[in-house]
């Protein structure tokens, strides 16, 4: 095939083009022709097709995402907001922290190991591109039923991929989630989060400015992997009748990425770059158009200078390739030599592929011939916007009416019955120990991990002299969101906020990964609209702005969509990490207090799922002012040494929290059911805004006074004691029995 140049396109307006195969709709193709005033060249068509994909353009979601800006709370902490590679937050002492959670769902289903591995790689480069040293990763994961045969194919590969890539990069994995639910059977969710740290003055942005500055592509060579990853893979539903999309999945090389990190940080230290962008989804198409679009001028690129793994690649393929471990930097001419020298030191290939121009066009040449000539904004930032129709699903009312009342679902009425259900919940795949998974991740590397596996949040020390630290928690309960997406999204934020506070850190900012079904389904679009509205409203109340994140749509196979799953990450700061609060009960005799109010709220609960396989009713109510008060109390108590342990109450309720805190510390607890309280509700209700804390006897008075003065209900429910969990008057279960139920579950299912 001969080269399709701009000149050729002008002369042959009627040539049939494969816009549909590239994932474009007819009206989108027409719009491209209108923008250019001619038909696009093959290379231009390739660029528009990937950049206007749902994944890159947010065309279905952006009208809703706007709320995160419109309802943004006032926050002194925000340094860089939505729109850059990741948001940046001021954490004090001159430090800035950047964090973001992103999805790699579709590739991980097709090819679990590489899909998950490159998910880590991509988010780490986003963080790096902001100027930060990546310091930790986390993975919120969702799988189909734990006993489904395909889970055995998908889960081990995904876990090995996350470990294989993250461990080799030297980034501690400090937490995440693993949830099983048959709704994710054909669409597992692999979200990846990375945290990075820098000084304020080191913040870098993705923009190409200053005519004459050089465009340097560095990192791995470009190959034929991941072509069309964002368009034909991530932006369509799976369909058994079409050929497998495995070639659209990228292949990762973590060693190359480790070199890229160290090399880039050294380049930052010497202040050699004006603008920088990582190459992820949509590869070079994205990097060149976004850099040029955000900058002041145009850009000229000699595409044939791009180092290739496969010399037969066409210009279209080079522009679409999603080969991993590549970065693109804008460098002043007099700094190019030093830039290349540092790359050579780290054995990283670096090539000047073009320069910033004073024009307004992005011009790409192939052996001297012009193959792309476009206004970069039309590619990167002015893609289509859809007002997708949405409507409350016809089944929503019936689902909400099916409440898990005592009449609808039989509740245990004896001590033995309570004990049996407690063990069932603690030993269910969702509530059981995840050590088989987390033991495959390095949590120690870098030597700054303060809290990780099994804790409410992951916490990292960022300054060894001052003990300044940050913590992150991610949460998202798809069952709650299915029952009520508005409340479900708020509950996800409330839980992550609570988890951060329970560790002793002050919540500052949010990143979200919104995982939903097809936007072409009005039911799904309603879920999305409700969830974003709920999240934006809640962020405003809690004062935690959304700094960025990502949207993953089309998570459905055939007609069946996943539960709406907004995963919310909250970042917090703690002035002195030595004051952090772990979840473990470690000291005999310490007093256990239940903070917050407990109501009969079992809708979407772990108990209703595990014991009755039921989903119906309404999720727990949200009281954001209460969440904030609880957070303030937990932080103050941690700072002033009034509590030695704290565990948030969420899925599984108080019962599950006690099991986890007892097992983690190797100590039992004696619990007294408060006067007038139904023991079943006490143990299994999932009312929000609650935590259990262990208070040293010497601090009881002070702690109580603080709760009373601030108006937070604090009920003494027992004491850390012995080697069993003893709910007085109901049942006693030994730690050994609890451990037996809680551990080995995942292994048994996957072995």
């Amino acid at each position, binding site marked *: 095939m001969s080269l399709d140049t701009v000149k050729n396109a002008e002369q042959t307006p009627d040539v049939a083009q494969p816009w549909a195969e590239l994932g474009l709709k007819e009206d989108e193709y027409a719009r491209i022709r209108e923008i250019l005033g001619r038909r696009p060249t093959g290379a231009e068509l390739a660029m528009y097709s990937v950049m206007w994909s749902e994944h890159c353009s947010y065309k279905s979601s952006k009208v809703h995402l706007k709320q995160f800006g419109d309802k943004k709370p006032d926050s002194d902490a925000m340094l860089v907001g939505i729109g850059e590679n990741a948001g940046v937050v001021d954490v004090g002492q001159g430090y800035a922290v950047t964090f973001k959670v992103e999805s790699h769902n579709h590739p991980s289903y097709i090819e679990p190991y590489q899909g998950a591995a490159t998910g880590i790689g991509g988010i780490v480069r986003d963080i790096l591109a902001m100027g930060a040293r990546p310091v930790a990763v986390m993975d919120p994961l969702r799988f189909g039923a734990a006993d489904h045969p395909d889970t055995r194919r998908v889960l081990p590969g995904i876990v090995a991929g996350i470990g294989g890539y993250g461990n080799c990069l030297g980034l501690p994995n400090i937490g995440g989630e693993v949830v099983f639910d048959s709704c994710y059977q054909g669409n597992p969710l692999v979200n990846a989060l990375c945290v990075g740290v820098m000084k304020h003055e080191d913040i870098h942005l993705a923009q190409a400015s200053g005519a004459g500055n050089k465009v340097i592509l560095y990192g791995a060579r470009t190959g034929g992997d991941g072509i069309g990853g964002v368009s034909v893979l991530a932006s369509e539903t799976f369909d058994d009748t079409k050929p497998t999309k495995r070639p659209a999945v990228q292949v990762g090389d973590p060693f190359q990425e480790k070199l890229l990190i160290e090399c880039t940080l050294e380049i930052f230290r010497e202040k050699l770059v004006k603008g920088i962008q990582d190459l992820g989804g949509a590869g070079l198409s994205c990097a060149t158009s976004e850099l040029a679009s955000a900058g002041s001028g145009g850009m000229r690129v000699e595409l044939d200078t791009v180092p290739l793994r496969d010399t037969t690649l066409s210009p279209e393929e080079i522009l679409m390739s999603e080969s991993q471990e590549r970065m693109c930097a804008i460098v002043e001419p007099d700094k190019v030599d030093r830039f290349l020298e540092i790359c050579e030191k780290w054995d990283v290939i670096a090539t000047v592929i073009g320069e910033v121009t004073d024009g307004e066009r992005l011009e790409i040449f192939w052996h001297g011939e012009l193959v792309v000539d476009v206004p970069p904004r039309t590619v990167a930032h002015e893609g289509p916007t859809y007002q997708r129709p949405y409507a409350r699903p016809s089944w929503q009312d019936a689902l909400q009416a099916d409440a898990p009342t005592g009449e609808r679902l039989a509740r245990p009425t004896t001590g033995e019955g309570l004990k049996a259900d407690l063990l069932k919940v603690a030993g269910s795949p969702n509530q059981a120990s995840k050590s088989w998974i987390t033991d495959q*991740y390095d949590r120690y590397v870098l030597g700054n991990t303060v809290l990780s596996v099994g804790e409410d949040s992951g916490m990292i020390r960022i300054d060894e002299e001052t003990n300044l630290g940050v913590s992150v928690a991610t949460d998202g309960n798809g069952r709650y969101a299915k029952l009520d997406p508005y409340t479900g999204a708020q509950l996800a934020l409330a839980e992550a906020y609570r988890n951060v506070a329970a560790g002793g850190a002050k919540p500052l900012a949010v990143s979200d990964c919104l995982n939903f079904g097809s936007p072409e389904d009005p039911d799904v679009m309603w879920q999305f609209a409700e969830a974003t509205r709920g999240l934006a409203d809640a962020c405003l109340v809690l004062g935690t702005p959304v700094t960025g994140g990502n949207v993953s749509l089309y998570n459905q196979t055939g007609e069946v969509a996943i539960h709406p799953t907004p995963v919310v990450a909250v970042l917090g700061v703690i002035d002195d990490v030595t004051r952090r609060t772990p979840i473990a009960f470690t000291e005999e005799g310490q007093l256990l207090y239940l903070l917050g109010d407990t109501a009969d709220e079992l809708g979407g609960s772990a108990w209703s799922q595990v014991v009755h396989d039921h989903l119906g009713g309404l999720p727990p109510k949200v009281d954001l002012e209460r969440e904030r008060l609880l957070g303030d109390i937990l932080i103050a108590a941690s700072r002033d040494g009034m509590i030695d342990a704290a565990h948030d109450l969420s899925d599984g309720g108080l019962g599950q929290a006690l099991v986890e805190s007892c097992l983690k510390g190797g100590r039992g607890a004696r619990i007294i059911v408060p006067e007038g309280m139904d023991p079943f509700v006490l143990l299994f209700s999932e009312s929000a805004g609650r935590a259990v804390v262990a208070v040293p006897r010497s601090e009881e008075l002070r702690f109580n006074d603080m709760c009373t003065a601030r108006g937070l209900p604090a009920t003494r429910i027992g004491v850390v004691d012995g080697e069993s969990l003893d709910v007085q008057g109901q049942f006693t279960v030994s730690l050994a029995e609890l451990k037996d139920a809680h551990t080995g579950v995942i292994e048994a299912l996957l072995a």
Partner: protein
Amino acid sequence: MTTRVGVVTFPGSLDDRDAQRAVRLAGAEPVALWHRDKDLHQVDAVVLPGGFSYGDYLRCGAISRFSPVMETVIEQAKLGMPVLGICNGFQVLCESHLLPGALTRNDSLHFVCRDQKLRIENAGTAWTRDYSAGQEIVVPLKNGEGRFVADEHVLDELEAEGRVVARYLDVNPNGSYRDIAGITNAAGNVVGLMPHPEHAVEPLTGPTVEGLGFFTSVLKQLVNA
């Protein structure tokens, strides 16, 4: 004069900064050494840190072993300089033939990260003098290819000469022959260890501080030398 302990950074080294921290907490001065630089910059001892040097492609440690810095390290180790290889560093020492045997894929076929109990078997090496023989410690272990293997006669020889430095207790996490977690050369100056003592040097971040002894040991060794 402060004792200078070099920590080599290979491409893909990960725990180099952790090893430097451990050296500092032990009271010595950490010196960063670069794989391409033959010069050891007057260090008194060398740590080869954990990580995935050269991505562990080919075989763990097989490429690093040929780096310029290793020429000098091998030369100096033979002259008695204390050298500690941790995890990937242990693999490099085996590939360099400073230590016998090899580290292969864990028998579980999974990467494993856990708090591991060890027994110090030989408290006479340059890196274990601050322990007592038979002492039990807990330090993190994290590896994918940590299974120590060697011929029967090599194993017998290591046992007979007291060259097994540390052994796994309770759980053998990777299928190492005879539960071996670390070994030394005949002179006792070169030690290879699969677990990570540098991650057990601060109560805040480690399961214990029982790893610090490896780094304080070498200080005493050098002061007394």
